[in-house]
């Protein structure tokens, strides 16, 4: 029973390790000061934290996050939806469809709002 888990674990570890090893072997090795610094999503990690920065980056990031998380939400719904309508389901498929459509509607509203506010105009 746990064999499958073991296999999965093995695959995951080897995928990770293999990738690192492969990049090390195949990639060009150009080291520099900038490349060596900590990755902070494009921000310069050195210096005062109180300096001003362009807020657009975060807006785009947040918008992305929003829709990304929504997609995560879709997955379990899609996975169980067929069962809800099936013989062992409660016959609630319609209700669940409406709920998801409502959820989608809120996302669409949020998307339209962001659009209208000019969030996607990166200039």
């Amino acid at each position, binding site marked *: 029973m746990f064999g499958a888990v073991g296999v999965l674990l093995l695959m995951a570890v080897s995928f990770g390790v293999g990738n690192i090893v492969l990049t090390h072997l195949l990639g060009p090795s150009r080291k520099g000061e900038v490349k060596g610094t900590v990755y902070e999503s494009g921000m310069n990690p050195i210096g005062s934290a109180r300096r001003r920065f362009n807020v657009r980056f975060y807006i785009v990031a947040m918008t992305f996050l929003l829709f990304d998380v929504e997609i995560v939400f879709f997955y379990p719904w899609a996975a169980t939806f067929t069962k809800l309508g099936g013989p062992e389901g409660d016959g609630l498929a319609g*209700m669940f469809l409406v709920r998801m459509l409502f959820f989608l509607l809120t996302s669409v*509203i949020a998307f339209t709002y962001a659009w209208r*506010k*000019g969030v996607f105009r990166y200039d």
Partner: protein
Amino acid sequence: MPTIADKLAGLWPEIVMLLGAVACLAAGLSASARTRRLTPWIAGGTMALAWIFALWTGIDADHPLGLGGVVTYVKCLVLVLGLVLLLVCAGVPEGLKQTAAAEGARFDPGLSVRGEFYFFFLLSITGVMLTAGATDLVWLFLALELTSLPTYVMIAMTRDRTVAHESAVKYFFLGALSAAMFLYGFALIYGATGFTEFGPIRDAVAVSSETGLSDPSPLMLMGIVLSVLGLCFKVAAVPMHVYTADVYQGAATPVTAFLAVVPKVAGFAALIMVLHLLGLDRLPEPVLYLLGAIGVLTMTVGNVLAFVQTNLKRVMAYSSVANSGYMMLGLMAGLGVPGNALGNGPAAVLFFLLAYGFGSIGAFAVIAALAAQRSPDGADHTDATGVADDLEYDDLAGLWWRSPVLGGVMLVSMLTLVGMPPLSGFMGKFFLIGGVLNAGFYGLVIVLVINSAISAGYYLRIAMLTFFGESSSAPAVILPEGRRGPRVVGAVIAGIAGLLIGGLPGNSVVRNAREAFEPVPAPASAEPETVQAAADESTASAPAVARSQAAGLADAVPTP
């Protein structure tokens, strides 16, 4: 087990509110300037429609705590107050420098905040309505956050001053701290009982056969205590009151009026629900101690701090704290004898909220309609509408002689907050004190009365200043028509309501508040199951009650 559809049926008012909020958002960003100007009207129409829906859906007879009446009452209450608040708040985003920039030659949707303001306004009120209607701890938590989150944004965006942002950040962080607190409490309640639904939680709490009081497990008790303390933030009670003055002062005055009323209604609705998990009629001694201590500390701290203040918004902030203290005592008074309004503490709280709401809104609306002349030291002293709205006592001097309408509203508001007999505040305090007396807490009544006397010290000072005061410098001027928006109308409505519901219409509101708690739980010595059964049985007559209640509230409160 109610189905989703059944649950949705009771939520029509909230659905209306949400749709209206989205409509506001859309209208505020519309390309047509005329549509944009319609936004506040949409907000008002939405609330009126939601009110009709709230009356139409009536009382939920299957409310797990038997508090279906309270739900409807609070929804109507907050919508009525919300309509008056809208009058006071309308014009705030329109007056922002930012809006002026956005509404330039070409409309810039990125700068405009008009749609957002009314959107958040409606969302926050929706939050209160959902709080009242909550039947589940998770729902309750989300609804409370829905109430609070929009207010943070409203504070930050309605004033062209850094101090507003400071207020918003303070409010946000401390609000998060308090939310963590009551969330922890909810978690403990879940841990103690294994349920998040109100009904099963209530059934899981044992009742001592000896004293007839609830006998919760220590874990459950701690859960309740932390929830109550966390909710203290929403109602601005000790020890969570510290933010009040700073935040109220930092926000634009109309938004301050909103802060003084709406979260408080949500907080007390939530407190009533949470405490009724143990049974408002049979609260165990430790909880009574807690409520008593919070109440006494809150009213005393609020009053003495207000006493030494000279800044009007800070005075009103501490007055808001003190009033929460009075109401806290009402929560411990128990439900009294069925059919008798005098002695039902929580019902008195529900009525007091209305009286306090109109008194506060009236006072804030008057302050919002004035502009100080005293501090001409530049931009930092002007608010969203480009005027100095941080009024001191001196600014009110002789207001009556310059504007009898505003002076009169200020007078009525102050007198109603003091609790002067013909006014609504008197009836509120009368029923509160009656309830606490009935429950036998004589010491607390004495403290309450002494505190009322202290509060008269600053309320009456304001009232007197509006008549006889002489200012050493130039007193505040009344904003011109274009800049004050419909604030004066809001002030007048609040004043008239404060006057009227002290009289005959107040009786019907009191009756509604009392009926909201009927059916009264069966005698405390009974087994929990019996209690629930009895409650269910007597809720059967609820629709009739709902009808009369709806009619009564409609009579009592004048609609703008």
